[in-house]
């Protein structure tokens, strides 16, 4: 037996598990090999020392504690006991807490214009009278205090006289309100049509001359908004157009893109840098959000206001973009970018599906700036908005785009819409 073999057998030797020839070989080897004898002594002592640790007594009352845990009520019963026992004390506490929370929620709702607008937009489509009023006299969604203050007389109010061709056509073609289907409920923000992925990030940064492309709207193109439009057309019976096949990727964005060259992304960094010189800490995006913020509006330069609103528009923050563009138009009515702002304001409403508010903005743009390069897009969008509300006067606007601006980007889309939605 070698030394290695002998040492491999130590454990069994210690436990008296060896027998026969193996046991005799090991004992003989240990007699002859002093190294293995010493190793065996150390091994045996080590095992002996470990065995000497012995058993340990548990703490007193261990078994009783185990029993307590077994007999403890289930978690839901403990929770109920914690919440409601003693009943005469806990119930009033819960009632008071509920009242405080409700009051806080109510106050938050009342003081938050965004929340109120969301609620109003949700309620508005179910009101049958919304579509009855002509666009020129139609009042936008119930304005918040901030919005009323932001709109000075003269720019915000639209004169009812001098109805344009659009308005006449709309008035003639408007179907009875009773037969009009309700406008679609606003979709959650994340479900709305999205811009091409690079745009929201690149628009504020890019110094290229690429036009600021509005996010793709689903109206008439993408599946989800088109389904809504189809729903709107169904009650009109034979006037309903067949479902349009899905367009190629990016096609809808192409159709709905505003005319190129109107708003260059290269203007944004410039405007922002100018704005930074005016007041780098001014919270430009929130300029028109509320009365407290309105006080700082007059001190802000038009560049800051416009670029902030345009950035919010590009980032699909349409509610804030709406406030921004309204503030810009109200505070700088003579600025050269008012036509752009008016178009983007209307488009922001449109992309938020607030068609009833979008239409007056497009109409005002067409009326105030008949020579603006934004007019074809405004006509097209105005037509789409009316059609989305079930107003066939939108067909006339699309015809105007197709006939008066045959070279415009929107002309092809208008012709296609005419064939499908205005047969």
């Amino acid at each position, binding site marked *: 037996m070698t030394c290695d073999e002998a040492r491999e057998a130590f454990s069994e030797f210690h436990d008296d598990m060896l027998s026969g020839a193996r046991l005799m070989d090991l004992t003989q080897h240990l007699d002859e090999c002093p190294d293995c004898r010493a190793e065996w002594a150390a*091994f045996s002592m080590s095992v002996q020392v470990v065995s000497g640790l012995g058993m340990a007594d548990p*703490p007193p009352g261990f078994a009783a504690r185990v029993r307590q845990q077994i007999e403890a009520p289930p978690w839901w019963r403990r929770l109920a006991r914690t919440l409601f026992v003693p009943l005469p004390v806990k119930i009033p506490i819960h009632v008071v807490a509920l009242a405080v929370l409700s009051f806080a929620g109510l106050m938050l709702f009342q003081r938050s214009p965004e929340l109120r607008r969301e609620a109003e937009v949700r309620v508005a489509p179910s009101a049958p009278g919304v579509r009855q009023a002509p666009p020129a006299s139609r009042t936008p969604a119930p304005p918040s205090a901030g919005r009323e203050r932001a709109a000075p007389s003269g720019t915000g109010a639209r004169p009812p006289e001098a109805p344009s061709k659009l308005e006449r056509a709309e008035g003639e073609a408007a179907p009875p309100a009773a037969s009009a289907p309700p406008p679609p409920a606003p979709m959650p923000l994340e479900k709305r049509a999205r811009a091409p992925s690079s745009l929201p990030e690149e628009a504020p940064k890019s110094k290229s001359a690429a036009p600021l492309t509005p996010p793709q709207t689903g109206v008439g193109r993408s599946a989800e908004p088109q389904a809504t439009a189809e729903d709107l057309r169904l009650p009109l019976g034979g006037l309903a157009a067949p479902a349009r096949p899905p367009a190629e990727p990016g096609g809808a964005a192409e159709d709905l893109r505003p005319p190129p060259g109107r708003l260059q992304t290269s203007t944004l960094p410039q405007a922002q840098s100018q704005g930074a010189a005016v007041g780098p800490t001014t919270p430009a995006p929130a300029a028109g959000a509320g009365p407290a913020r309105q006080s700082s509006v007059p001190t802000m330069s038009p560049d800051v206001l416009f670029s902030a609103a345009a950035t919010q528009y590009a980032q699909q923050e349409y509610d804030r973009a709406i406030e921004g563009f309204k503030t810009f138009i109200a505070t700088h009515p003579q600025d050269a970018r008012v036509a752009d702002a008016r178009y983007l304001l209307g488009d922001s409403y449109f992309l938020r599906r607030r068609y009833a508010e979008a239409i007056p903005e497009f109409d005002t743009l067409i009326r105030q700036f008949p020579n603006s390069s934004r007019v074809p897009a405004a006509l097209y969008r105005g037509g789409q908005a009316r059609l989305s509300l079930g107003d066939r006067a939108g067909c006339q606007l699309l015809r105007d785009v197709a006939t008066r601006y045959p070279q415009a980007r929107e002309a092809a889309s208008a012709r296609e819409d005419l064939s499908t939605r205005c047969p």
Partner: protein
Amino acid sequence: MPVEQNDDHSLVTRTQAGDVAAFEALVRRYERWVFSLTLRMVGDRGEAEDMAQEVFLKAYRGLPRFKGNSRFSTWLYAIASHHCLNHLQGRRRRPAASARGSAGVAGEDLPAAERLPDEAPRADDLLEREELARIVQTELTFLTEEHRLILILRDIQGLAYHEIAETLGVELGTVRSRLHRARAAMRERLEAHLSVG
């Protein structure tokens, strides 16, 4: 390991019928065994008590499925052994807890060699002394969990080879080889602390 099998059977039957007092009697019978195992495995009395309680709670919840194919003691040892291994593996994934566990026993943070006198006394003389017990416990925690467990089951808890094989669910040959490697590893760790002469 003196185990009264007949009493175990009746207590198990009563527990399965909903008699918590019967289970408490089983706990009293095996608490020392289970607590010793958990204490030697983790080296901390508080943690060992928690683990032992968890072992008995697991056993209580599993008793309705206990068919009596094996002895209750073996079944309980298996639950305790696997609970220890799972606990230590989970603690190894949590570095902070692992550091606490490997820090030693009963608040002894220094390595055993640093606490020993220069001239180590004979093992027979030291065995009664608490310090040697601490040293051994500390060195135990440096073994792998499998080696630690089999060493405790055999040399401290006194289980026979076949009981260990049944408890751990391994072959008898595996018990032999694993036990030998564990003892050899422990002998190397204790070499610096013991003198043979």
